[in-house]
């Protein structure tokens, strides 16, 4: 625990930079982000030793207690790594906030990291909720940083409201569990005496609460608004780590407090996860705002993680034995990998915004020439998010698919098989749509020709930002090519010895009958050999440069496919889900012989927001307005309230037994 205390001290120093005077804000910036970097580094190191077998002494002070088991260690590791990367990035990126509350940014950044680490270390319900709420507040402050913009503060407001509703659900779950135990420490809550009905309630509350924070459909609506509003390194950390912490909490509930799982819980978790994955990626492909794309992609990946987790739960409930760990391994591995690649992509988005000043990919094009390194790193990140082999995105995908195959082939019950097969199909859709989504993201922004002047003025990011992106790209590739350390760490977190056979350098899984193998190193070797051969044939090709033939005119950059156009077929294919709102208006006719000028507007409102949240909001306000009539201003009415209450209470008291 000393190590964690040391890390906390680092973050504490970072938080105290809030008190620096305005003239020293640059120093505050360096100190804060440096402290965050060191603190996260220490955390990552310590978490790694924990997974390697070290243990940690629990710490308690009054009503607070901190413990660390392997389940939290793996998330600590993830937090530490992502914290190091993003803090490094922030050293460069946050400089652009000089003069606009830079100290607040640095201080809250440290508070955010610290609170996430303390949530993971919390050893009782009180500490957990305390740091959970601090995490919410710190991230709220960070999201709200550019509060002059209307879109920013509405997003921050929506975020804090929804997260508070989620916290309310989590609190009810904790309090119900805790009141059925001797006290509120996790150890005591582990042997609670909840009866079966209450278990259902606790599950419902915990799942909805954590699903909200994790951004599962239909509770995801805050996420695509909050992420674009926040500064990029903050969105990186929120998406990369904070969502995983919700997953941590859910796992904590499932493993510790509700050890006996109902069949339908598992199905619900799995189906909700798969549906979130599908809808998330579908909306991601429709967006033009680069950070909204990434936010929806987070919804997708959290969905995949929960689907895998639900699959593991089903395996455990139905199959027994040792197989069921595969789903959990898949979920955790994917969570870990996703945090790295999502951090990378948000940092790329930040660099693009930094370089061009816009988030709209319709305005980009040909950025690869202006920002070559960013382009390279973004390409790696896009491949990872599209789950392409040899990046770490695929490792998780492979394990997820394996766990579903295992589930389906291990169960002969038709209904289970049908659920699982439907989720499997949805995951198949997800994979393919994710590919399309990131092809679009990368291709439209980095390739082709500039679509606006912004690109002409674009510039490459500074060395800190590039270093951070480079570091995470390297991690993406390393974890993709040599996934064993991650898988082993995850196995250690789940306290597995040899359940998951690891042969040589390859991942192997025998759960479904015969051995399934994935050996990325060998695959790399194969690809390298063939590539070498192909290179021999193609390195000396004769290349001639000339503009594409365009029926006698020179092609303009407006002839390129736009991002909206690129996703049109998918939009049409799923229009019953997306319900796009098109508006075509004909302008004045300028010339007798040429066509009319058109104005075309396309909007794809979030289905859930429109069908669920807006009516609820409308009714909430409507009912409130109605209820306000009870206070009409007449003193006689008010006294009659008192009188009526008195009479009623007297009657009640006379009847009370």
């Amino acid at each position, binding site marked *: 625990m000393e190590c964690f205390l040391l890390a906390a001290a680092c973050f504490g120093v970072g938080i105290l930079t809030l008190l620096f005077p305005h003239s020293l804000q640059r120093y505050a910036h360096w100190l804060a982000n440096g402290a965050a970097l060191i603190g996260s580094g220490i955390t990552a190191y310590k978490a790694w030793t924990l997974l390697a077998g070290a243990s940690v002494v629990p710490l308690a002070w009054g009503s607070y207690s901190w413990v660390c088991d392997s389940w939290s260690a793996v998330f600590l590791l993830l937090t530490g790594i992502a914290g190091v990367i993003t803090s490094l990035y922030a050293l460069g990126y946050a400089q652009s906030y000089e003069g606009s509350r830079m100290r607040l940014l640095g201080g809250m950044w440290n508070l955010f990291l610290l609170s996430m680490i303390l949530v993971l270390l919390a050893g009782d319900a009180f500490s957990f909720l305390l740091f959970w*709420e601090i995490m919410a507040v710190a991230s709220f402050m960070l999201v709200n940083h550019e*509060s002059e913009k209307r879109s920013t*503060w509405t997003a921050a407001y929506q975020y804090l409201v929804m997260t*508070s509703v989620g916290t309310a659900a989590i609190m*009810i779950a904790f*309090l119900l569990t805790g009141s059925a135990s001797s006290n509120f420490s996790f150890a005591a809550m582990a042997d609670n005496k909840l009866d079966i009905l209450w278990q259902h309630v606790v599950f419902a509350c915990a799942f909805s609460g954590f699903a909200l924070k994790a951004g599962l459909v239909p509770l995801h609506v805050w996420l695509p608004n909050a992420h674009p509003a926040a500064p990029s390194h903050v969105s990186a950390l929120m998406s990369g780590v904070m969502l995983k912490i919700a997953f941590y909490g859910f796992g904590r509930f499932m493993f510790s407090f509700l050890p006996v799982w109902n069949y339908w819980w598992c199905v619900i978790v799995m189906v909700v996860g798969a549906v979130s994955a599908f809808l998330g990626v579908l909306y991601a492909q429709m967006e033009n705002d680069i950070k909204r794309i990434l936010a929806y992609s987070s919804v997708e990946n959290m969905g995949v993680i929960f689907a895998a987790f639900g699959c593991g739960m089903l395996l455990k409930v139905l199959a027994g034995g040792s197989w069921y760990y595969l789903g959990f391994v898949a979920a955790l591995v994917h969570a870990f990998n996703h945090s790295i690649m999502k951090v990378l992509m948000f940092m790329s988005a930040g660099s693009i915004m930094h370089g061009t000043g816009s988030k709209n990919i319709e305005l980009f094009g040909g950025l690869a020439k202006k920002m070559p390194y960013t382009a390279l790193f973004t390409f790696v990140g896009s491949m990872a998010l599209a789950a392409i082999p040899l990046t770490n995105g695929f490792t998780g995908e492979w394990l997820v698919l394996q766990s579903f195959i295992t589930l389906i082939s291990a169960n002969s019950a038709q209904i289970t098989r049908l659920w699982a097969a439907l989720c499997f199909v949805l995951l198949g859709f997800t994979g393919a749509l994710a590919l399309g989504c990131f092809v679009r993201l990368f291709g439209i922004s980095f390739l082709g020709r500039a679509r606006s002047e912004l690109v002409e003025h674009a510039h490459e990011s500074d060395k800190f930002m590039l270093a951070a992106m480079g570091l995470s790209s390297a991690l993406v590739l390393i974890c993709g090519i040599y996934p064993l350390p991650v898988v082993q760490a995850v196995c250690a977190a789940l306290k597995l010895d040899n359940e998951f056979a690891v042969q040589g350098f390859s991942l192997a899984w025998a759960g479904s009958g015969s051995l399934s193998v994935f050996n990325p190193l060998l695959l790399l070797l194969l690809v390298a050999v063939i590539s070498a051969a192909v290179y021999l044939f193609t390195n000396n090709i004769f290349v001639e440069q000339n503009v594409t033939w365009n029926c006698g005119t020179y092609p303009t950059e407006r002839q390129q496919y736009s991002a909206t156009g690129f996703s049109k077929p998918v939009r049409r294919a799923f229009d019953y889900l997306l319900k796009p709102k098109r508006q075509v208006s004909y302008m004045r006719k300028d010339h007798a012989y040429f066509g009319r000028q058109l104005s075309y507007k396309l909007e794809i409102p979030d289905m859930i927001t429109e069908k669920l949240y807006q009516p609820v909001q409308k009714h909430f306000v409507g009912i409130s307005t109605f209820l*306000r009539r009870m206070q009409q201003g007449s003193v006689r009415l008010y*006294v009659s309230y008192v009188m009526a209450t*008195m009479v009623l209470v007297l009657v009640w*008291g006379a009847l009370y037994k």
Partner: protein
Amino acid sequence: MLQYILILLCLPPVCAILALTGRFANNLLHWLHRLTATAVGICVALLAAKFDAAVPYVDDYFYVDALSLWVLIIITTLYVAASWTAKSYLTREERCGVLKGEQLQTGRYFALMQFFCWTMFIVLLVKNLGLMWVAIEATTLISALLISFKFTRAALEATWKYIMVCTVGICLALLGTLVLYYAQIAALGTNNALSWVFLHQHAEALDPALTKLALLFLVIGYGTKAGMAPMHTWLPDAYAEAPSLTSGMLSGALCSCAIYVLLRNLVILLPTAGSAMMSSMLLFFAVLTVAVAVPFVVVQRDVKRILAYSSMENIGIMVAGIGAFSALSIKAVMLHMYSHAMIKFVLFYIAGTIIQEYQTRNMMRIHGMIKDVPHTATFWLTGMLGILGLPPMGLFFSKFYIMSALFKEGHWLAGSLLIVLLAGVLIGILYHGMRMLCGEAHRQPLGDLLGTVDVPVLALLLIFTCLVGAGFENLPWLNNLLNHAVHVIGG
């Protein structure tokens, strides 16, 4: 011990009478006011330091134990804070507030403030439940004058409602006290009439039927004073129309006093009346109070009324904590009272400042505070987050403990309802807060008007709540005091 109590009770009226004479210049009055408050503050500090929480102080008229000391600390803190911030507030009020252009009667204001605090001190220090009632009624009357201080139409309207509703309620409390006295006479004779200590010792001897009847009246009566729905109707008007300094005192101190008196009475009644009846009644009122607050904070335009409704919400939580009636919940109620008083005082003060800065109390017309008035905005935001029960402010801690006590005692339905309703309150308050804080201003404020004295005072209040909240159960002295307060109540 007695000397402190006497000093405590002598200084404010002396100061008040001096202020009323009207022979002092405003500046001198300010210092007189500050010095009196500081002296009282030191006096309370010494009292607290010398006080052994396990041994209450008793004499013929006064009684001090851990419970009264704790509430005394809360009220004195607010008293000192209010007196130190009064100067800049009143100066601004004269310059650009509602009373712009009018000659502000500083002397009258200070005299009323001093009397107001004095009556609250009496509530806390007397031994006799009857006298306690008298003092509570006195606080109502004095505060009525404070509310109507400006004698504007709105202030008059608010005061009239305040007096009518509160006096009716308080009369019911008198009825309850009478019933209690009748029970005492029936069981124990006329000696030590209504002495709390005596009744506390012989609480088991009282007739259950009578104590139940008394309980009903007392809850309704003091509940009106505390602001429980549906007797709360005076509350938003009074809080909103009083000068902001007074609103803070009304919300923080007066409400704590009412709850204190309710607790004192409950201790006597519960052994015979049984806690089941009390629990179900108080929990019902608690949930109702919070529920009534929700629609009013969602659709609201007035910056001070929204704070008033948030006070209702917190009163609801405190009443729920009393309803749960376990050691933990009562302790948490003590903490909640403290945090709520501090934060609400800061918020009302800042609300007053905002009204002065923007020359409007319509929240819909205020935007971009973070950009234009950063200091005010910082306090406003921190206070908002604090009052919504978000850490690190103290209300989070007490809220959590009250809710956990509710669940532990089996009141899961009330607990769940409260948690959900609190989220509803958050939706409303945060929306209006964010509208004011963020965005771009349509009308320019007069400037960041917070003075050099107010900022540290308000910051200290907020930091206190953080420390007390975080140190709850962990700081030995605090824990000891609160434990003894709980012991007094016997939850």
